[in-house]
């Protein structure tokens, strides 16, 4: 998700006129000591991790000297949260608190507007405060364009019993918080605790802001590198997947790792869904068969075959899966053969070593099923494909049967031959890659399937019978070539094998090298 780090949120609050403690971020105990010296006086040492109740996990500690600060930082930096090491701590001046409160802005799906939530109590989690002390909580739905009027902000604090100068200053703070929420297009922006200091000043001691993933494109100033809501910091493979998706607006590719560190026989499968609801139904069906999924993946919204291909390659970069399962809703409005070609290309390049069951129902499903069945025959592992009239539970049952039969690694037939440099190359760029025909091979081809199968019909036969572009190279690169992959996939199965499509996945080879997954 586009969740902002505590220090980043605090600097945005400070710029909007909400006071925050002076502080510095560091990544080692020594640096913590230096920072403590610069800040001077007692400090708070806070581990930067995506979790609530940090105090109870020892991630928030207090120090009154350089030595104590180093010790606290060292302790925190040796911790891990949810399997992720804490790599950064924030040191801040320790302020003297008079009272602690809570303020948060959320976008409410019921009322369909932003809502300010405040509590006269702060510190612990807001869910807990609502449960234990409902009388201390008040909410204020407000207009997304106008923001919160000053009088309404004071009134909401009055309703939870805050009086006097504190009421006025906390009111100012939430008016500013609402401005921040709109400025960064937050789905939620919370300050807990929002404190009144001795002397009456108001300050934000913590800050959690989650930016709307769909709005990240117009907020380069936030420096968000992965606009995804994962519940954990993005893994290396999730980052690779995000790079595939980031600038390719054709359809959607979403990838999320749910399990790691499993092995063959653990009944964990690579899951390739299409559409949120259909994917969920498919995962439920797998669960009923005793499988768990290594990942969630959704390629939907009419993605090109190239995007489905990249998704499949990334899914198969998870070592130890027992099978590959693909299913969407079963009755898709989009043409399904694009996904089929993407999968075929990926399965051959890997090559696939576990059984796959793919349910590609909807428009063009007959063609999709034919492509997947006939073109994967040489793979050496079973690949079964079904359409809309086969329920997803039946598909999950088929996968179970195939996995049970698959006792050893398949003896592979054709691992794709190391690429020989083409004798007579004819190449052009596609939107996200390149196509190379070896015209020496093409000249021997009787089928010319590349021309007939090309979905956008941008190829023609030259006088010598070899395929060439019927549009300009620039037009092909700008999107006339939709990367349907027919000129490689159909060519490999039905033609002479002269067509090759290069679709780079930045970082994937390095990742596989580092993880030992071949």
């Amino acid at each position, binding site marked *: 998700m586009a969740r902002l780090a505590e220090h980043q949120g605090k600097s945005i609050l400070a710029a909007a006129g909400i006071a925050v403690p002076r502080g510095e971020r560091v990544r080692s105990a020594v640096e913590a000591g230096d920072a403590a010296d610069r800040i001077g006086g007692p400090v708070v040492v806070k581990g930067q991790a995506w979790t609530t109740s940090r105090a109870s996990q020892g991630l928030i500690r207090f120090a009154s000297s350089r030595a104590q600060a180093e010790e606290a930082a060292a302790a925190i930096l040796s911790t891990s949260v949810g399997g992720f090491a804490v790599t950064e701590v924030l040191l801040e001046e320790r302020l003297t608190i008079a009272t602690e409160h809570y303020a948060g802005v959320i976008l409410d*799906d019921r009322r369909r507007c932003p809502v300010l939530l405040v509590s006269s109590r702060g510190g612990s989690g807001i869910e807990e405060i609502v449960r234990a002390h409902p009388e201390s909580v008040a909410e204020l739905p407000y*207009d997304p364009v106008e923001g919160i009027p000053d009088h309404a902000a004071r009134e909401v604090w009055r309703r939870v019993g805050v009086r006097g100068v504190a009421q006025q200053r906390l009111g100012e703070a939430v008016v500013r918080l609402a401005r921040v929420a709109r400025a960064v*297009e937050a789905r939620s922006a919370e300050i807990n605790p929002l404190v009144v200091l001795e002397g009456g000043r108001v300050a934000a001691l913590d800050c959690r802001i989650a930016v709307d993933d*769909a709005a990240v494109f117009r907020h380069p100033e936030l420096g968000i590198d992965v606009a995804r809501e994962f519940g954990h910091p993005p893994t290396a493979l999730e980052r690779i997947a995000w790079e595939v998706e980031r600038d390719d607006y054709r359809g959607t590719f979403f990838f*999320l790792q749910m399990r790691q560190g499993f092995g063959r026989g653990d009944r964990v499968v690579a899951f390739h869904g299409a559409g*949120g609801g*259909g*994917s969920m139904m498919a995962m439920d069906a797998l*669960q009923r068969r005793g499988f768990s999924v290594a990942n*969630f993946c959704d390629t939907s919204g009419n993605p090109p075959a190239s995007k489905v291909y990249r998704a499949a390659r990334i899914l198969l970069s998870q070592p130890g899966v027992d099978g590959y399962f693909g299913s969407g809703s079963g009755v898709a409005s989009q043409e399904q053969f694009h996904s089929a070609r993407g999968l075929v290309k990926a399965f051959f390049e890997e090559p696939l070593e576990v059984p796959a069951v793919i349910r590609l129902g909807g428009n063009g499903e007959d063609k999709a099923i034919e492509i997947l069945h006939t073109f994967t025959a040489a793979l050496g592992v079973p690949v079964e494909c079904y359409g809309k009239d086969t329920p997803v539970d039946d598909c999950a049952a088929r996968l179970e049967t195939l996995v049970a039969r698959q006792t050893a690694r398949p003896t592979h037939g054709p691992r794709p031959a190391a690429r020989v440099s083409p004798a007579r190359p004819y190449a052009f760029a596609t939107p996200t890659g390149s196509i190379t025909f070896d015209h020496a091979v093409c000249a021997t081809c009787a089928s010319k399937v590349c021309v007939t199968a090309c979905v956008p019909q941008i190829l023609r036969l030259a006088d010598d019978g070899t395929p060439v572009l019927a549009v300009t190279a620039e037009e092909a690169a700008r999107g006339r070539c939709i990367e349907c992959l027919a000129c490689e996939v159909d060519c490999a199965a039905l033609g002479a094998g002269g067509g090759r499509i290069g679709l780079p996945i930045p970082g994937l080879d390095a990742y596989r090298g580092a993880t030992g997954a071949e």
Partner: protein
Amino acid sequence: MAIMVDETARVLVQGITGREGRARARLMSEYGTRLVAGCTPGRGGETVDGVPVFDTVAEATEAAGPFDASVIYVPAPLVKDAALEAIAAGVKLTVLVGDRVPTWDVLEIVRAAERAGVDFVGPNTLGVLSVGRGVLGMIGGRAASAREWFKPGPVGVVSRSGGMTSSTGYYLSRAGVGLTTLVHVGGESIVGLPMPAVVRRFQDDPETRAIALFGEIGGSQEERIAELMAAGEVTKPVVAYIGGRAATSGVRFSHAGAIVEGGRGTHEGKVAALRAAGAVVVDRFDELPAAAARMIGG
């Protein structure tokens, strides 16, 4: 009857000269939708498959008369302005097909629609299809598929998932349970007409005798339908499947889809609320058609 669209509704397509707009306008026309005009800024005076194109929605309205619905096919960053334009021109129902529309933009569209007293569907919606009468959006993908997949009858279908709207409609039709209207409300957390609002319309539609619902984890729409049933505001029988039993808490699935936060919007909670309100909730999706058939006495 049916809800939201029929053969008499006068329809506009915004972004009709784009690749997607052009293709989907053809689907709508071929299915029988009364497509009156298109709109693309700077392209006024052209025609697309015989449909006149105007520069602005106001101009289209002056030239061709008021619209019952507008379907918008423009890139996500431009959706807000196109929707505000349709709303300002008095279009009664705007359909926002695009996905990844920023949520604060949706909030502004909500605000404008509420002030104007009009409705919108989406964003991130496949649209609305009234069987044999008309389609707004792209349910079915091809007119021939839409005719083959969805048969007329007494059941209304609603879902937050586009694919599952089509699936539910197809499997019910195949089991001999015909449909009035299929509505994909859109996959985002904040949408123009959420499922409870659609269920109310089915309740008011004399042709709809039962409601089939594909729900999923996250949000509160399914619970709010249960509230409407418990309050006696929805009395027609409801049959439902709730997806996402296997999903993990605290994780957002898909770019838009379901998220479970702090026990809110869980699978168990939704199933229990709907059952307590009298809905039939099936455990497996493929049990839905038979359950719907029993409901309408088929």
